[in-house]
């Protein structure tokens, strides 16, 4: 099956970004949205046309790019990345629609979102390490401008922090790539050629000490991705961006970049380093456990919606890492599924918090004295309150809501291997019930705080862009079977090579 859907999906947004830059604002919005939706339709058709129960790569497209270095334009989808294609397809039209009325440089913002969409689609579908690195690196750049131009008071500092971290991350990942590239003969960046333990037993000389290439490359790559995932304690830039970036930009970061980083970590580790994965998995699970604890503990103290979202994201990342590191079919499938659901739930939460911030001019719900600064939204704006309720139920993993599937599968898959981590996850979920419901009470229930009386419910446009997010959260919670059937064969095949 090769119908160029992947290329269309990747380059539609880029073409749209260029086109919309040359037309007036009124038309540019439609072009941007149109390009994003076209790419999304390609993505959705691509996933829907995939064969279930097939572990192989599908819809593959391969062209030589830089022949001298054996770099190729190699794109394909399989069970691991199909859900992320869906997520990105859903996310970006929603984000563009949410910034429809942006007054400052709307073309610039939409253009950057489109570039980001291209970059993330590319990073997800790339089957060549260099190509993956290229798109992954490209995905860092739009954030520098999006935060630096449209951010809050501390935007320069936040955007600088983000680009410095991204550069450092890029440098580490590139070092890993160089190590891998020169370790095989003939040299290659192709994931297909490098998979199946081709790096096993290979050593390289570093200051007179012989080190295993797998171990070094894994360390470089995982730290590089941990910087952008974000994994505690490399998350400081992330929480700073949460505070300074516009809501839509932070949603793009937490719902788009973070799941993609986790996907790259999972895919590259499973494919490239199967022989060290036994011990590497312990490190991954350890990082996940720390994320769960720290994310939960820090979320409890939050008084603002944005930073709260950042720590919720941190905690959820911990759960996904737990699934990745479990190396069990159930846990790994749960981790892949949770990447999608994390993206959707974070999108819903972030957009709701953006709407509240726009209406009230603040995202702080409890001030330094412990008094509520919002409140009473549920009776005046029932739709936004219901959407927030559904998102919270999904984040907590109520049965029938999206998060349940991922949470249950990760716990089922991890318990027999890492019972202590599962206990930590349980504690983290209990903490989440506390802080999420406390936030819900402060923001949506009770009497409105003084000086905060009028609150308009969702407009038609807001309903339109929140509808797909909420529908997806409910649909994927109630009927996960088709997606699970897509993921399972790929995960089982990958795990069988590890064993």
């Amino acid at each position, binding site marked *: 099956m090769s119908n160029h859907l992947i290329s269309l999906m990747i380059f539609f947004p880029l073409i749209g970004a260029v086109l919309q830059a040359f037309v007036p604002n009124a038309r540019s919005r439609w072009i941007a949205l149109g390009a994003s939706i076209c790419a999304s339709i390609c993505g959705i058709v691509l996933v829907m046309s995939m064969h279930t129960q097939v572990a192989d790569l599908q819809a593959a497209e391969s062209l030589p790019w830089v022949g001298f270095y054996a770099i190729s334009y190699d794109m394909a989808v399989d069970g691991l990345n199909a859900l992320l294609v869906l997520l990105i397809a859903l996310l970006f039209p929603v984000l563009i629609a949410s910034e429809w009325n942006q007054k400052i440089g709307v073309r610039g913002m939409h253009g950057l979102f489109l570039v980001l969409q291209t970059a993330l689609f590319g990073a997800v579908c790339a089957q060549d390490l260099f190509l993956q690195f290229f798109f992954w690196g490209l995905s860092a750049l739009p954030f520098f401008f999006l935060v630096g131009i449209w951010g809050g008071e501390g935007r320069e*500092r936040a955007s600088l*922090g983000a680009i410095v971290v991204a550069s450092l991350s890029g440098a580490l990942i590139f070092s890993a790539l160089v190590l891998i590239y020169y370790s095989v003969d003939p040299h290659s960046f192709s994931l297909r050629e490098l998979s199946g333990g081709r790096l096993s037993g290979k050593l390289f000389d570093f200051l007179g000490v012989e080190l295993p290439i797998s171990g070094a490359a894994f360390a470089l790559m995982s730290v590089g991705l941990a910087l952008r995932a974000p994994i*505690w*304690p490399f*998350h*400081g*830039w992330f*929480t*700073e961006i949460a505070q300074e970036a516009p809501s839509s930009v932070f949603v793009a970061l937490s719902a788009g970049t973070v799941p993609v980083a986790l996907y790259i970590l999972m895919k590259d580790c499973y494919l490239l380093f199967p022989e060290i994965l036994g011990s590497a998995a312990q490190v991954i699970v350890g990082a996940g456990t720390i994320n769960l604890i*720290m994310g939960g*503990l*820090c*979320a*409890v*103290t939050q008084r603002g919606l944005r930073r709260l979202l950042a720590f919720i994201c941190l905690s959820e990342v911990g759960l996904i890492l737990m699934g990745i590191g479990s190396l069990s*079919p*159930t846990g790994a499938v749960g981790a892949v599924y949770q990447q999608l659901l994390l993206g959707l739930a974070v999108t819903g939460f972030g957009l709701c918090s953006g709407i509240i911030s726009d209406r009230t001019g603040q995202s702080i719900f409890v001030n330094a004295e412990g008094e509520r600064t919002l*409140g*009473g939204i*549920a*009776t005046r704006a029932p739709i936004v309150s*219901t959407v927030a309720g559904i998102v919270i*139920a999904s984040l*907590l*993993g*109520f*049965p*029938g809501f999206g998060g*349940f*599937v991922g*949470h*249950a*599968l990760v*716990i*089922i*898959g*991890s*318990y*027999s291997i890492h*019972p202590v981590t*599962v206990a930590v996850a*349980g504690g983290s*979920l*209990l*903490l989440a*019930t*506390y802080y999420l*419901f*406390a936030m*819900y*009470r402060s923001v*949506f*229930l*009770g*009497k409105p705080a003084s000086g905060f009386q009028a609150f308009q419910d969702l407009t038609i446009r807001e309903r339109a862009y929140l509808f797909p997010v909420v529908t997806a959260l409910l649909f994927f919670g109630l009927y*996960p*079977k088709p997606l*699970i059937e897509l993921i399972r064969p790929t995960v089982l095949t990958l795990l069988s090579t590890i064993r």
Partner: protein
Amino acid sequence: MIALQSSLTPILLSILILLFLGLSVFTWGEKLPGKGSWLLWAGILLVISGVGFDSGLLLKEEFKIKVWMTGWIWPREDLSAITVGIFQDPLNLSMILLTILVAALTLMNQSFLCREPRPEKVHAGIAISAAGVAVSWISITPWLGLAGLALSLIGGFILFGSRWDSNFEAKVAIRFIGEKSGGLLLALMGASILTSAHTALIFNHSASWMGSGELASSAWIGSILLVMGLFIQMQTFPLIGGLVPVSELYPPLRTLLNQVFPAWAAFGLLVKLEPELIRLGLFPGFGWIALISTLLTVLSGLFQDRWRQGVGLWLSSGYSLSCAFLAFSGPRSAMSLFLGVSLGSLCVSNAATSLEGGCSYNPNSRKRAIWIKLALFLGTAAGSGVVGFVSATGGLQWISKAMELTGGMVALFLFVLFLFVLLGWKNAWKISKLSLVTDVSWATVISQFACILLSLGFFWTGCITGDVLLGAPDRLVSSGFDVFFGPLVVEVGQSEAFLTASGLYWGTLILALFTSYYLVGRKVDQWELLSRAIPKTKKFLAFGYGIDELVLRMMALVLKAGHKIELFVDYKVWMQWMPHSLNVGIKILSNNMSGFDEKMSYGIRLTLLRVVEVPAKILQLIQTGDVRWYLFFALSSGFAVLLHFLKI
């Protein structure tokens, strides 16, 4: 006999429609005529029809149980499968019918419901919660059961939607959903751990609960978490603090949606889990925990000043006592007390609310008040195991089983039973003093008597006395409990013990009734005087043994820890130290590099200068005439000739 179904049964479809109607009323209820109550009635009638249709089939097919199953998240045949499905047997159908009837009886109190600021939220809450309980009872695995429990909790939370704009009600609502969700998550975690031991978790199918040898601990831990999560739904000690704040909501509604329905959803799962819990060895340990919890809950209830908390705690203690019954004497006796106390407390709560309102005196209002007081005492009797009510059979069986235990444990059992019954009657005496008149409609009065009717022993056991006589000489029709749980066998050798148990049981009940009358029923409230004499103890007990304060302190510690971590990592390390050290580091490096660069440039300049200077000086000497150019030329030629010849 089991019949496998290939599609959804009428009852499941009707429950799903009720859920959909509830969600519709929640979303659009404000704009619907009559605030959507007619939609709710339509849903209720549909479920009753569904139950009727499926019950008819069940009778026609001689109790052939219907089962429908499917893999939800993972294929059903695989290990670690998350399976959902329904199990349609007489017990499940009866409980669904009872749930719907109770919801309908509550809806009959329109005069009260209309006083709520947003009645559509109440209607939606009732529909969603009732659908949740029904789903929970009909489920064949804990997964769907827990989904039903989640629905019943969501319904209970939506109920508060009527008063979400009050700070106090918001606090109560969040506490309700927070605590119960915590329990739900624990139960889900337990089910997940059980599934990780490669068990399919199908009720009535023991093989599906078997874990392999090394995974036995998983099965044990998973079961403990599952049971703990379900037990939390009973809102008994240590979670009684949530019952202390007095909500402005119509009390029977709060009783129904915040206590009865979540507990029914959870208890259904506990009853179905009972064989596995016995096999895993969780009984009777769980029973002892439930018994101690009952004791502490009852003690707290006895020291409550207001009837709302008293009735709430009586109901909670009744639920935990039912759990103790389940552990010690099986599902039959547990179910009987559970039903009795649920229906009885609904009746008591309804009666108390009717009397609390008061009105101007007229013969009609006086007459209604008398009927309501009668309903109040009958409701208390229904929940306290009085002869003739369904709860009686359970209490008696429990005491009979307790007599088999060593060490005089029966005394403890009787003491707990005595306190529980005492709390019920204390509440009743106190409520009866509220008012002599009431303005509630006859529909409300009838709804209370309908609850009492449903709690009659005859209704469930087929015996007038509620199956408390040896050999059941008063049996008029066959027992529903026999159909649900199989016939009750009392061996000949046990008859003497049964009589002793009966004596002890009835004695305890009568003693509790008279004690309550002596303490509270007379003009001077002796209990009130006793409470005043020990104000600190009373406060400690009434406010839930200081558990709330303890939890608050623990949360304060968590907050402090979180704050410190955030302050250190996010603010100090990332926002101060790291940028500062990077800045300083880069500056130092830059200065050093700059100094090095300067030195190197100077060196290069100097070297270059010297390299250029030597030939330049020579040329200068030639130019100034200090060195004759021909001499320089001759010397160079001579040197070249010499070199040439030397080479040869």
